[in-house]
């Protein structure tokens, strides 16, 4: 136990003294700070240019042979397209086109009749929804005109058209929309941190092996102490980094809280419920440890530092598959599909899958307990096997040992 503490301290100090580690953490903190100050910075610019903006409002032209129609359409469009300055165009269609290509107007609706038009625009943006809005508006205009023709007063027609259906939604389980963002962030953070730190653990072990410090180490310390000390140190380093990044995010958010106003995404991220936060920590730590053990064991079997990248491939793939399954399910909105249910018990996918289900769906407590129990058992088991592989692997120099021979030796050890 004392040895474990010594190793943990030494390895953790190694991370915290590492210039790259410190540099990346600082960079992330600064990036977060800048991101959090964005609304303040943006409002600073806005207040200065506020008045000049009026001239920049784009012009939308409405053209019809029938001047009554064009006046009616303009009246409705004024309401519907508040971001445009709607004008009735005179002259010919050709002149309207010219105004658009020259840039004095952005777009134009040339009415062929009350139920047909041509939309002219210079560059059609990917998100241009003007025609959809126009269709709705024109449909209304058409219907109101028709109703009036059939003998209703314009007021009656308007009342019918503007009738609203009232609806209320009460969420009894989870609001997927609201939980989506921090689930997304957590899954992504888990993915990044495990891959980055896993690689670091593997490289760390392989470096000791290639620098031959190993022979002194294995004769000085127990392999379980070595493995657990190293992996826990990397886990702590990872947590310290995350706390630094998310902690500073929280601090800077609070400083700029008023500027963010009621931005739903940001608010939902910072108002994560305590229980979910605890689950996040549990799944994060367990998932991290399990994968880090695997990466460490692999690092010990690599004969050269250069081999690490290819050696860790199977574990990386396993992890990426888990990530894709979870991400795909999240995107589809169908969180409780069969694959996700299975994945939330398989320890290699459960840290992401179960957490996602807890956040975005309703999961019975015994299911969560079962998933965590399986994960804890597997993590400890993987740790012990990793320590054995480490013990055997670190002294195999030269050719990369075959998987079969490793299993045989580990079995015997």
């Amino acid at each position, binding site marked *: 136990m*004392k*040895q474990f503490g*010594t*190793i943990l301290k*030494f390895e953790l*100090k*190694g991370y915290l003294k590492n210039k790259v580690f410190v540099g990346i953490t600082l960079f992330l903190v600064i990036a977060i700070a800048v991101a959090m100050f964005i609304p303040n910075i943006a409002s600073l610019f806005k207040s200065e240019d506020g008045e000049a903006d009026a001239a920049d409002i784009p012009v939308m032209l409405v053209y019809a042979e029938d001047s009554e129609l064009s006046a009616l359409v303009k009246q409705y469009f004024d309401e519907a397209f508040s971001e445009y300055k709607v004008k009735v165009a005179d002259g010919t269609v050709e002149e309207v086109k010219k105004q658009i290509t020259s840039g004095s107007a952005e777009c134009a609706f040339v009415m062929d009749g009350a139920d047909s038009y041509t939309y002219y625009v210079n560059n059609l943006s990917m998100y241009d929804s003007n025609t959809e809005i126009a269709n709705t508006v024109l449909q209304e205009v058409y219907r109101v005109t028709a109703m009036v023709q059939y003998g209703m007063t314009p007021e009656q027609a308007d009342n019918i058209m503007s009738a609203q259906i009232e609806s209320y939604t009460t969420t009894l389980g989870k609001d997927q929309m609201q939980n989506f963002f921090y689930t997304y962030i957590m899954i992504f953070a888990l993915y990044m941190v495990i891959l980055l730190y896993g690689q670091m653990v593997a490289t760390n072990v392989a470096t*000791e092996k290639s*620098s*031959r*410090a*190993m*022979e*002194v*180490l*294995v*004769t*000085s*310390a127990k392999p379980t102490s070595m493995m657990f000390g190293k992996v826990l140190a990397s886990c702590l380093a990872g947590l310290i980094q995350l706390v630094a990044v998310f902690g500073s995010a929280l601090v800077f958010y609070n400083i700029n809280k008023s500027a963010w106003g009621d931005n739903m995404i940001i608010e939902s991220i910072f108002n994560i419920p305590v229980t979910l936060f605890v689950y996040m920590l549990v799944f994060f730590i367990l998932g991290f440890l399990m994968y880090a053990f695997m990466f460490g064991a692999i690092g010990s079997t690599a004969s050269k530092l250069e081999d690490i990248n290819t050696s860790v491939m199977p574990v990386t793939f396993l992890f990426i598959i888990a990530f894709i399954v979870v991400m795909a399910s999240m995107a589809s909105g169908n969180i409780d599909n069969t694959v996700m249910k299975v994945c939330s018990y398989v320890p290699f996918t459960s840290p992401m899958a179960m957490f996602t289900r807890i956040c975005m769906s309703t999961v019975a407590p015994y299911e969560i307990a079962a998933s965590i129990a399986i994960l804890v058992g597997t993590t400890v088991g993987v740790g012990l096997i990793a320590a054995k592989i480490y013990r055997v692997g670190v*002294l195999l120099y030269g050719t990369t040992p075959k998987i079969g021979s490793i299993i045989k030796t580990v079995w015997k*050890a």
Partner: protein
Amino acid sequence: MILELKNIDKSFGEKQVLKGVSFTAESGKAFGLLGRNGAGKTTTIRILMNVFPANGGEVLVDGKPIDYNKIGFGYLPEERGLYPKKLIIDQLVYFAELKGVAHRDAVKAVDYWLERLGMSEYRNKRLDTLSKGNQQKIQLITALAHDPQIVILDEPFSGLDPVNAMLLKDVVKEQIAKGKIVLFSSHQMSYIEEFCDSIAIINAGKVVLHGDLHDIKRNYVRDRLVVNTTKPEQIQTDFGSACTVTDNGSLLIQLASPDYKKTAMKRLVENYDIDEVKVFEPSLNDIFVEYAGEQV
């Protein structure tokens, strides 16, 4: 304390590397483990250090199976290497702490050894800024700082300049005087000859010679004469194939039996112009070549 290896067997796959290796080493004495490259020295040491288990045989301390938690080992492996990117003081203290030394004592011990080996100026430097010989001295500290009962040095002199070799010799003598078991492995015979009270020669996984170095030398067959002369020609013709010339120009005369020693000496002194004649005393080198030279 008596350290004893009994019938150690070890195979790697199909290849049997050690075939019943046995020897004993005592406190306050240095023990030399000799052998050619690939004879099994390092494998023997690794089994002794519990780096990997033997397939058969046992390691005993005072007749009982060794308890690695109680017996302190200091080990200078043949494959040298520590953490190249870390500060020397940090890693030396770390290794001492791993061996169970409290932090404060570890710092003290490391500082003592840095001073003793003339390395204090490198205390706060990174290991990879040092020369190979100096790195080796640093590594020696990992074997000694925790004051172990058994010190195992695998090829400790390789790569050291004569001044550092002297320093190491003094340190080793000091350790022996402190009543520790010092176990050397080397194929540099002169050093072994200088320190070691007893030796074991391993050849192809077997101990081919084991015992007290003085006894071994004394029991060596005294059937050769060394002759120093300025006129070797006559002797060479008279003794024919029994007479050979050594590297330093002396003549070496092989007798049919040690019993003829006296007669042959008398004959040489009376009949030839001779500066010196004496019985050939083998050096450890000669003994080694004789025992380890034969391929099995």
